[in-house]
């Protein structure tokens, strides 16, 4: 083999070695599986921990995708630890929920038996005193989750129209030009940021959700119907990809059949080209 041939052989081996993709570590695989198992959860007790786990997992996955051997291992370990933390927080929240119910039942028995304050047994008194602290802690957790939900809603209002409709529920209306390329169901440049903000909110508000696609009346009705269906589905798929449970979200296209603006004007047509994300009102 000549010197040149040897040089090319060494370079080829180095190149192939450098191009070999990094395998996810066992810790990363476990983190992914653990997160997937709780991705559909809407437990407010561990909403913050789930969001932290998702962020850590995203960083670990990115390190693997970029073949970053220096940080892939530690980031995978961090992701797994965050997932385990979210699992423990969820379990603590579930136990507190049950604790409150058990305490309610204890108090009902005390009232039903006509026990006066002086007749309450020491054990029942201790149970009441103990769970007041736990109830207070649970309220603190729920208050923190509600504050986080409100912050996420405020972020949505910076680019979407958010209205509480008395018949439909909470309607988050995003302009078609904001999300999509013209006459297409493909996302435009600002879609990623806005849909990510939307996914954060949806994971903090567990109501069933419908993604509705709407168009103006330019072009054929059949075309507009298909375009609206594709757009709605793409938005839904993105949200599910970000961790929104597929069990609580659906998509539908309405084409040009539900205008909110006058299709005879440019401004009206722009209003009609939209995606409505409807958090369905609970039925009694």
């Amino acid at each position: 083999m000549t010197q040149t041939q040897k040089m090319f052989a060494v370079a080829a081996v180095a190149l192939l070695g450098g191009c070999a993709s990094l395998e996810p570590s066992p810790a990363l695989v476990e983190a992914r599986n653990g997160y997937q198992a709780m991705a559909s959860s809407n437990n407010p007790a561990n909403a913050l921990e789930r969001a932290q786990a998702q962020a850590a997992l995203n960083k670990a996955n990115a390190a693997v995708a970029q073949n970053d051997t220096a940080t892939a291992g530690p980031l995978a370990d961090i992701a797994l630890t965050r997932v385990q933390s979210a699992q423990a927080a969820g379990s603590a929240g579930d136990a507190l929920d049950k604790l409150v119910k058990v305490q309610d039942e204890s108090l009902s028995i005390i009232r039903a038996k006509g026990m006066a304050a002086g007749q309450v047994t020491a054990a029942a008194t201790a149970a009441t005193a103990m769970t007041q602290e736990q109830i207070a802690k649970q309220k603190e957790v729920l208050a923190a989750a509600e504050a986080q939900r409100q912050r996420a809603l405020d972020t949505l209002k910076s680019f979407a129209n958010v209205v509480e409709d008395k018949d439909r529920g909470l309607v988050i209306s995003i302009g078609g030009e904001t999300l999509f390329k013209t006459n297409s169901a493909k996302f435009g440049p600002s879609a990623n940021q806005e849909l990510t903000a939307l996914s954060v909110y949806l994971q903090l508000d567990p109501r069933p959700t419908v993604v509705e696609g709407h168009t103006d009346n330019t072009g054929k009705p059949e075309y507009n119907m298909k375009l609206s269906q594709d757009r709605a589905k793409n938005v839904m798929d993105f949200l599910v990809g970000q961790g929104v449970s597929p069990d609580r979200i659906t998509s539908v296209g309405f084409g040009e059949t539900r205008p909110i603006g006058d299709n005879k004007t440019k401004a009206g047509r722009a209003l009609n080209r939209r995606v409505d994300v409807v958090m369905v009102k609970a039925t009694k």
Partner: protein
Amino acid sequence: MRHLSKLILACALVGCATAAPPPEPPKWQTQAEADIKAAQAAGAEQIPAAQDHLAKAQKALAAAIANKSSLQGSMASAEASLAKNLAREAKAKADLTAAINQLNALKAQ
């Protein structure tokens, strides 16, 4: 000579007064320290399942400070968070068990 020693002393005092304050710790360090404190407040030191993770958090924080490593700082925060939530989980489950026992005692009366 006396004047010289007074002058030196005055310069030293001025130097001390105008010395730059110590730099603020990086955000990841402040966060990790807060997370460790939260884990301790949740009783992680008394819960076997949480003790190991709290120790790992403290060790990771020490290494992070020595190496000025935000990655090790992130690990310290993650371990502390896990220690805190394991402690909360253990306490909540123990309280639930006690409450169920007490409910059963009330039902039996």
